[in-house]
């Protein structure tokens, strides 16, 4: 009977195209708005490394001012970045499975190919442990080695897009790229890799593109270069040289560790606290002992990647969907009751209440599917608008298969909820009453 009822539903929709369009449109509008906000929220709050997000940690040491905490919230939490000297001290630990201090900076890049113009590329200076810790996939070559880290070797790992641009996508391992006019040997090319949110450095936004290239952290240090990020200082200090800056209390580098077991985590916490206690003895770390490791999801929450505004927006969008559904209930009721005489005929010819309810439920289902498809189109347009109007949302405002299925499912559920009362109502009316109105 489903196909029969589907045919009747199509006929019914065609019979009154204006009313049908209003119903489908109301659901589509509600779904479109809800899915646009939900998609943004979903990507914002999704786990960028689901397989090991609970084993990779951002490190916080409280080297901040004794007079006031860095954050007022979360019990006066420590700063989100570390001083260079503290990060280097942590790099001396052999407890983590992998660890890496890092910073963001840009490079002017060219090759020996004279046809290519020099371009400015975003880069990340980090340690070799960055790649295995974050499961970065390689298509050519491999990360540089620990000894190359120590030697500040001029080696570079390129992103796939950068390799495509500089070397036509071929295996460029061993070739030379010039970074700020200095030759660097390509040791690896990574595949497309875009964790979202981009959790490991939130200074430039959580929804930006991964870097175009990666070099050892020691390279910019050896060249006395700073970070293209956020540098925060609390102590009035005479900084007259790069070495002064490196030894200052300014926080400007990120530090991540991979700790696979509870024992490792306990040991690392002890290690951090021990280091802080030593520093206290040297007159630093004057605040109460508060050193933290935060797994990725906790880190995103702590850094308020998904703000209360986003949650409120989702709630408002769903309230709008409810309003659309209430309108749909009214429209459906009007449509179904308008057809009551024909239902009376069907009842007289043998349709039970259940048959009538099923017939209308199929129509409601069809309205839901059409509303879902319309909602998807509106969501697509909504996300397109978000991408075009708001910088930094380019990688965020995209529909993925999960959200497409969610939209269809949500539309069908919404239509069924909206259709429950009209369907129940039409199936309850006595056939004789219907026939009298014919």
């Amino acid at each position, binding site marked *: 009977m489903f196909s029969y009822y589907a045919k009747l539903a199509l006929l019914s929709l065609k019979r009154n195209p204006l009313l049908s369009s209003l119903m489908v449109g109301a659901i589509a509008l509600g779904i479109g708005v809800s899915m646009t906000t939900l998609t943004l929220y979903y990507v914002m709050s999704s786990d960028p490394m689901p397989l090991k997000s609970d084993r990779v940690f951002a490190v916080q040491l409280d080297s901040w001012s004794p007079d006031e905490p860095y954050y007022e919230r979360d019990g006066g939490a420590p700063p989100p970045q570390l001083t260079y000297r503290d990060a280097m001290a942590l790099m001396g630990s052999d407890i983590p499975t992998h660890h890496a201090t890092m910073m963001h900076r840009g490079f002017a890049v060219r090759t020996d190919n004279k046809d290519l113009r020099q371009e400015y590329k975003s880069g990340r200076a980090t340690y070799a442990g960055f790649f295995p810790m974050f499961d970065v996939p390689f298509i050519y070559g491999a990360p540089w080695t620990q000894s190359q880290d120590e030697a500040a070797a001029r080696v570079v790992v390129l992103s796939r897009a950068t390799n495509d641009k500089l070397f036509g996508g071929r295996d460029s391992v061993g070739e030379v790229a010039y970074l700020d006019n200095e030759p660097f040997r390509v040791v690896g090319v990574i595949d497309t890799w875009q964790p979202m949110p981009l959790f490991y450095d939130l200074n430039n936004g959580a929804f930006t593109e991964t870097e175009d290239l990666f070099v050892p952290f020691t390279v910019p240090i050896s060249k006395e270069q700073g970070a293209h990020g956020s540098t925060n200082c609390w102590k009035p200090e005479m900084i007259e040289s790069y070495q002064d800056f490196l030894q200052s209390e300014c926080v400007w580098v990120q530090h991540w560790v991979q700790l696979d077991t509870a024992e490792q985590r306990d040991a690392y916490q002890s290690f951090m606290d021990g280091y802080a206690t030593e520093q206290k003895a040297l007159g630093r770390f004057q605040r109460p002992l508060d050193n933290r490791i935060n797994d990725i999801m906790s880190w995103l929450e702590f850094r308020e990647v998904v703000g209360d505004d986003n949650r409120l927006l989702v709630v408002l969008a769903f309230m709008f969907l409810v309003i659309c559904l209430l309108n749909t209930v009214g429209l459906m009721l009007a449509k179904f009751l308008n057809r009551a005489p024909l239902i009376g005929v069907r009842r*007289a010819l043998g349709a039970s209440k259940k048959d009538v309810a099923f017939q209308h439920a199929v129509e409601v289902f069809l309205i839901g599917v059409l509303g879902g498809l319309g909602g998807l189109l509106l969501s697509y347009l909504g996300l397109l608008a978000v991408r075009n109007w708001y910088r930094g949302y380019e990688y965020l405002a995209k529909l993925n298969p999960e959200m497409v299925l969610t939209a269809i499912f949500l539309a069908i559920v919404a239509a069924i909820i909206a259709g429950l009362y009209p369907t129940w109502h039409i199936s309850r009316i*006595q056939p004789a009453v219907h026939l009298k109105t*014919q």
Partner: protein
Amino acid sequence: MLSMDSITKVYQAGVIETHALRSLSLEVAAGEFVAVTGPSGSGKTTFLNIAGLLEAPSGGRYVLDGTDVSTMKDKARSQTRNEKIGFIFQGFNLIPDLNIADNVDVPLRYRGWSGSQRRQKIDEALELVGLSARKQHLPSQLSGGQQQRVAIARALAGDPKLLLADEPTGNLDSLMARQVMELLEQINESGTTIIMVTHDPELARRAGRNVHLLDGQVSDFQPIEPPPAESDDHVAIVA
């Protein structure tokens, strides 16, 4: 075929009670052609609704084809209505979006028959009413008489034992009315019991028996005179 014993029907609207049927008792044998007449408000439509299981009686006992249907639940009533009763309405009540074949198909769909079974029954029913060539037409493309013949085909397609007709010629001109009446007589001759509500004394006269309703009860008064014994000039009667 149909046995009603002390059937009552009371409609309640707030504190106001309307007694549509007051202890109506009626027996209709299988194969009979009964005309039900009566003035407006006498309970004809209510009687037909109860006879067709479209409404439940407030009291009394109703036995249809040997089964007490007075207290049946909706599903069983719908099934009985579908299998044993055919309806013909004054306003034809065809479904405007469906073509003729699909209209005839409606009661068969609820019977749960296979596609081939239904197609065969549709063909037979439309052939009986002489509209096989119009299967793909929409109701709006047919004349009133043709539409009523489609309604008759729809009522007959499921081989009902009882045909209930509510003013079946009320919306037709005299020629069409005569054709429809002849069709009903032909159907009755094949063994189908027919109960026809009508205001038309000429039509009532052609039925095998007349039942006159007055104030929700069967009245002893018979306003319809039997037709002349030797007359078979239907045109003269209708005119």
